[in-house]
């Protein structure tokens, strides 16, 4: 166990090192940060002065060396835009992103397991077919489109009236097709509950939750169908296996077979995929947060790119890399708990 953790720690270092080198290497293509900092009519001599002051004229190795030395001491530099240490900026934006990811994960877990299991147990039922076809649509529509559609439907409202308004049935049909809107369309709202440090939460008030619904649903919209299909496929396979047949023959109740024996084995690969996807979800927040103006890391990162805020970009990439390594390590640990036959250190890296 300890050997495993040490190995993972070394992995983390390698990953962070590679990410930092790559993000440093591409910075010359990210544009000139000075351009974003000064007004258009500022003369070139002023710009040169500022460039020198920021050390942008030094060679790649000198700049990287300076960054790496400081980073090893926990100093990742100052954001050009926020005028604060990048780690503080990220700390402030991290909770919003985590809440969004947690909310989306909850939606995914609550819906994917029952639906996936149902579709596996009753593969031919009309409802299963309906879920399967809807999930294909869900996978194919990009997150930002889902997000914009959700805003139009539930925040602004749609007034759709193809049927005559002067008849009772026409009114009713139009009403069914139209939506009223009223959901918040952007941001986290004002009713946040302070937890600790920089963490203000949306989870503890009704108003806060309404702000969370649309972003979380659109973030979940990509992963939810994926998990429904994954759980269904795994479950179908498990249901064909010898021990399930044996258990059925032995007369154990179907409920127990489905939800105790089969489900447990179904969840093994699901956990693995889930762990990896959790990291991916942090990446997907860039799109969702941009559309909903959710003040998290994704939005911050996109804006940092637009402003060529290099220190912030590098720090963000490294932290996301760290999140990937950490989630994967946790997944491997949980895997060992669910299936004790798996030996951590014996696993190929």
């Amino acid at each position: 166990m300890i050997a495993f953790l040490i190995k993972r720690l070394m992995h983390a270092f390698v990953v962070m090192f590679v990410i930092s080198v790559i993000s440093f290497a591409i910075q010359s293509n990210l544009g000139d940060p000075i351009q974003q900092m000064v007004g258009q009519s500022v003369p070139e001599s002023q710009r040169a002065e500022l460039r020198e002051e920021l050390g942008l004229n030094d060679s790649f190795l000198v700049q990287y060396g300076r960054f790496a030395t400081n980073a090893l001491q926990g100093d990742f530099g100052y954001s050009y835009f926020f005028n604060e240490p990048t780690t503080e900026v990220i700390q402030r934006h991290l909770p919003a992103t985590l809440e969004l990811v947690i909310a989306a994960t909850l939606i995914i877990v609550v819906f994917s397991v029952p639906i996936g299991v149902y579709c596996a147990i009753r593969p031919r039922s009309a409802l299963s077919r309906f879920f399967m076809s809807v999930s294909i649509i869900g996978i194919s529509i990009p997150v930002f489109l889902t997000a914009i559609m959700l805003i139009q439907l539930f925040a602004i409202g749609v007034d759709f009236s193809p049927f005559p308004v002067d008849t009772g049935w026409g009114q009713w049909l139009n009403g069914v097709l139209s939506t009223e809107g009223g959901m918040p369309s952007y941001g986290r709202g004002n009713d946040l509950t302070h937890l600790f440090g920089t963490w203000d939460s949306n989870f503890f008030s009704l108003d806060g939750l309404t702000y969370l619904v649309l972003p979380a649903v659109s973030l979940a919209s990509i992963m939810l169908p994926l998990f429904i299909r994954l759980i269904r496929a795994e479950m179908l396979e498990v249901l064909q296996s010898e021990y399930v047949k044996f258990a059925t023959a032995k007369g154990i109740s179907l409920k127990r077979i489905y939800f105790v024996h089969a489900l447990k084995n179904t969840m093994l690969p699901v956990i693995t995929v889930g762990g990896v996807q959790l990291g991916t979800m942090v990446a997907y927040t860039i799109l969702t947060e941009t559309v909903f103006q959710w003040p998290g890391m994704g939005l911050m990162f996109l804006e940092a790119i637009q402003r060529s805020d290099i220190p912030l970009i590098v720090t963000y990439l490294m932290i996301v890399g760290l999140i990937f390594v950490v989630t994967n390590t946790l997944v491997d640990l949980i895997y060992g708990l669910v299936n004790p036959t798996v030996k951590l250190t014996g696993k190929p890296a």
Partner: protein
Amino acid sequence: MIDKKTLLASLLGASVVLPLPALAQDSASDSDPVTLRMAYDADPVSLDIHEQLSGGILQLSHLTHDPLVRWTKDVKFEPRLAADWERIDDKTMRFTLRDGVKFHTGNDFTAKDVVWTINRLKRSADFKAIFDPIASATAIDEHTVEIKTHKPYPLVLNLATYIFPMDSEYYSGETEDGDPKDEIVKNGDSFASRHSSGTGPYEVVSRQQGVKVEFERFDDYWDKDSPGNVDRLVLTPIGENATRVSALLSGDVDFIAPVPPNDLDRVRADKNVELTTMSGTRIILMQLNQKRVEAFEDPRVRKAFNYAVNQQAIADRLMKGFATPAAQLSPKGYDGYNDSLEPRYDVEKAKELMKEAGYEDGFSVSMMAPNNRYVNDAKIAQAVATMLSRINVDVDLKTLPKAQYWGEFDDRAADIMMIGWHADTEDSANLFQYLTECPDLETGAGQYNAANYCNPELDEKVAQANVETDRAKRAEMLQAVEKALYDDAAFMPLHWQDLAWAAKKNVKLEPVVNVMNFPYLGDLVVEQ
């Protein structure tokens, strides 16, 4: 009213359609404080109004501070902290300051604050260039300031729109860390970037960069005649165009700027929202680089390019009427605006000119344009490229995000480059100095002249105009320069970008908008 049953909403559950508490406040009675929730594409980068010369900072300046004078809708001056002014001689302007004005800290506003502010402006990297003509500012007495210029300078009042006096007493001394409180820091923490004290209608009460800024009306605001009735302002940056519009249409905010042109119709159609537009002063043009392409040295070719481009069509169809076709740099209202100049569009004429110049079969050029800097910039570039193909010019177009574009622009990396320019001084001479003067690294003249167009005679005329304090004479000189540039086809002018704001019906924007693109929100009335 039709009773709507919403299927989708009921599927998601009742909690989904609960109205926001914030919305409920809108219908509150008169005695309740009025809150204006506004969304801009970005929030101010700092509270230090001298840190950056940008739209965001100037908008902030008009909220937390007051200028000596400010622009009206028809590009005239309106007295603010300066109650009156007179020209003493060619080089001296005397301002009489308003009495009884208080800073947010409670300190009295006096002449020494103005002098202090001008000195600080001259130290700011972004402002020092436009304040260069000023030699000194002296306090004659408590409420009189004299501004002296190095040479006779006609634009002292234009500069005065940038003088937002700061509370000199508040910014004097040192912080706990031993840094001077008045230092201007571009990339780091400074006292002034986190603290603010001006004379403006609003005080900053809280600020979370990139998330929101909250303002409250200053109780002791000097302008008791101001009709403004907004007690609280909440500014949220919403960078994404579609989201910003959605936030307004769904009622989450009361006021947005800018309004993306593609959504103008959508905003216009909404019955709860009103769109306010006016023609702007930012010119969009293309520069034909004579250093890179030999053919561009021939004025006939440059003219042919101008004749080939249909500015009216771009303004009407591409910009959906959200632009005014241009034939010169100076917009209407500027001293240099020459009303005899009309956009020229005549493909036959263009072909003829090309033939005359010996380029009947055309040639190939490269073109670069930003794709997220100006309204529809990339589409405009594509349209121009297509129009040029009619005179057999083959355009290799590349569009880039603004962060990368300006580096390429500085390198003059393509034969034709797009640029938009708004004169900081709201004056024609500024346009010429940056866009058409012979490029000179030493003096900084022609810094954005990617055409490499050079006509020393015109430069001389602009220099003369800049020491001419007789406004009428000066206007004549500047208009002559516009005419000469037009005859010479020094560049391809396209249009002036219009300005647009959108707000709920009860927000009376119309009276407070102005060419500067920062509505004077201190005077804004929100009907209850």
